[in-house]
């Protein structure tokens, strides 16, 4: 991987209370790439994202973002550094309208960067522009996922972290989400993706980390990992069709 990644995680140890979930995770996300974390349930994928963001405080290790040590920063400060999270289960604000959901995203993120207008972002998502005055709760699962992505994008983040963006969506919607992520990457966005759907993850990603028991047990370019049937079988219990 390149010498100066945008995000660099070293020896990250983290967890909840006395339970250590991460046992020393190392990973790099180079600018402009899509990096994905895959692994079985409960191996620490979400905890890795939460620890990077700061909503779980790491017990040891370091997180460096764009040359700045952000290990001890609170989530709001990390977000101000230019990292946006599209969380698991979307977590849009159900009582706010689509426009308000995006507006509030625009209030976050880096202060020193030019952010797209709410209108511009809404315009990028066809299914959101039809519902701009609807409450978040009234949207379908796929629309809510798009809204969560839009809410993150409007803050013009340098790094976009997506946690299980295709979870619980119909196959056709999964394709839409996948296309959106690829499109963003084509436009130059840096993405750290946590994904249960191994096929989607390997399709989108440039580089893959496999997590098991709180540690990175395998890593490599996605085409290499996709071909490593034995590893995929051992850590994920799946094999990927060609």
């Amino acid at each position: 991987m390149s010498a100066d990644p945008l995000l660099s995680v070293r020896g990250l140890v983290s967890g909840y209370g006395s339970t250590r979930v991460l046992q020393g995770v190392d990973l790099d996300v180079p600018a402009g790439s899509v990096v994905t974390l895959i692994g079985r349930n409960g191996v620490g994928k979400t905890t890795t994202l939460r620890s990077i963001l700061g909503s779980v405080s790491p017990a040891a290790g370091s997180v460096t973002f764009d040359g700045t040590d952000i290990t001890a920063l609170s989530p709001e400060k990390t977000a101000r550094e230019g990292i946006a999270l599209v969380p698991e289960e979307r977590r849009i604000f159900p009582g706010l309208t689509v426009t308000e959901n995006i507006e509030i995203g625009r209030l976050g993120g880096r202060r020193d960067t030019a952010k797209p207008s709410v209108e511009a972002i809404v315009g990028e998502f066809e299914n959101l522009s039809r519902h701009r005055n609807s409450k978040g709760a009234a949207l379908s699962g796929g629309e809510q996922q798009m809204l969560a992505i839009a809410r993150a994008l409007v803050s013009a983040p340098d790094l976009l972290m997506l946690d299980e963006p295709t979870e619980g969506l119909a196959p056709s919607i999964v394709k839409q989400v996948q296309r959106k992520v690829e499109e963003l990457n084509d436009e130059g966005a840096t993405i750290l993706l946590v994904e249960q759907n191994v096929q989607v993850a390997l399709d989108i990603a440039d580089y893959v980390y496999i997590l098991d028991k709180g540690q990175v047990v395998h890593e490599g370019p996605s085409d290499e990992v996709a071909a490593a049937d034995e590893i995929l079988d051992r850590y994920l219990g799946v094999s990927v069709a060609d």
Partner: protein
Amino acid sequence: MSVASAVAEQVLNGLVVGMVYVLLAAGLSIIFGVMDVINFAHGELFALGAYFAFAIAGPLGGAGFWVALVVAPLLVGVIGMAIERLTVKRLYGRDPLYHILLTFGLVLIINDLITSVWGKSAQPFPIPSVLDQPVALFGFNYSLYNYGIIIFGSALALGTWLLLNRTRFGMIIRAGSEDREMVRNLGINIDRYYTLTFGFGAALAGVAGIVLGAYQNVSPTMGSSVIIPAFVIVVLGGLGSFRGAVVGGLFVGLVQTFARTYTPFLEGLIVFLLMIAVLVVRPTGLFGTSIGGGEHHDGALLHGSGGGVLSSETRAKIGYAAVGVLVVVPFFAELTGVTYSVTLLEDILIWALFALSLDLVLGYAGLVSLGHTLFYGVGAYASVLTLMHVSPSVLVALLVAVAVCAAIAWGVGYLSIRVSGVFFAMITLGFAELFYNAVFKFDFTGGSDGLFGVDVFYGLAGLGIDPREFEVPLGVFTLDGGIVQYYFLLAVVVGSYLLARRLIRAPFGTVLQSIRESEERASFIGYDVTAYKRRAFVVSGGLAGLAGGLFAANNGYVAPSFLHWINSGEVIVMTVLGGMGTLYGPMLGAGVFVAAEDILSSYIEQWQLVIGVLFVLFVIFVPRGLVSLPQTVAEHPMVGPVIRDRTGVKEAEVEQHD
């Protein structure tokens, strides 16, 4: 005056009171909606607004009122922000019960500060002369000030609505009320907005206090007299709903005013009847959307944990020793002449039983009953009425007290246990207030005087002890009627504890605890969660009635104050102070609380302030109660390793979970 004019005047009066309620309830509701905080101190902030205005306006003369109307709410707002920053903020993420407890402590503190600065009596707070004149509209003269309240209140309510729905500030706090963590993840410092929101709610209460202070007068009890109606409005309208606060406030103002004029008997009752009726039909209130509102992760109730350091044998030994000490106290008291200690112990034992009863529902079923004094008070009334009209036998009186309270608990439980959390707390509070207001209305309950002067007999059918005639010399001691009463009390309390413990160790108790941990999972296994909770509530109500009955029989009187909500607050304080979910913890808590109150009040004039401060510190730093202190100490990083090494407790094994 024509009938139409008379009705119009009543409508205006109702709107004036209603506007005050709107301002008060709006602040309360916003604070709950955004931060999940039930702010019992809201009434005191309301009173503080009135007193600040009173202090500012007095020296300034003519224009003083207008200066005060601006400055006093700002001051209250700043105090609100300080309260949020220093205390409330530390409890985010815990069950709303802890905010109830914390703000209950703040009530004691602020109220004591008010009385120590401005005295205990009500004082007139004149309205500005420019507003002190009649206006002839609708065919009658009506005060310009009152019209002013309606217009000003409406403008302020409209302004608040605009602030919530049309500004960036409002958007952020609405988002925060739905998902606090997500707002933070976006890069927004939600804590700052919480502080501002709390300050804003407090300032609104301050404005309401000024408006009502000048309409009536300023008094240290003005806070406690409005807080319950304000809660009723918030619950009636829907917790966290601004629209609900406005509609509910005006509605309650009108209903109260009309009831006072046309159905005086229902004054004081009708509001609670309405609240209960609305919640039975629509548990979320008129405009509430969901139980508990948007996200509202209810944090866990923190139970006492006596284990860890002290083994159960050690605790049993401590228990036997405690009972042993209680048995010999009367002898030492007589030897040393400190007979007062027996009276104090009787008080403690009764409160200990009351706290034990609450622990059965609070600590084991997770039901925050905010109106538990309903059973204590009704038990006392039932007991005295039985002694007066049926039989002088204490046994009969207590039996009646327990039966009546268990029956009422069944009824209240039937109507309230369907809803959970804060709604349950509010319905129980509503029922308690209904009974509190009702006892004033009837002759057979003795109205505001209560009932007193009963003779008691410890026995049945002529066989037993009449404490007035009982006297047995035992060497240097004399076993008299008072001591018999004491031992009877001790036996009943110890017996009740053993009964409660038996119940909790039986399968019934295990099911209750599983319900407390996860209602959903317990119901998936196949338990009828509601039925179990209701049974626990009935037992708890019966025991609380026993406590009230014992007090009444022991002291020979009962008064409406037995039903006052402050008792419900105090018994929750005792339960948490000792450590809920342990049975003995709350009894210990009662002992410490009653003794501290007794000792402090005889030495310090500002004892409420001291208790309030201690209590606030306790809720923040020792939420698991006194019984958990040994374990808390053992887990402290400075002391922990030493004790761990000694006791061989190893660090929790590392688990994998995400």
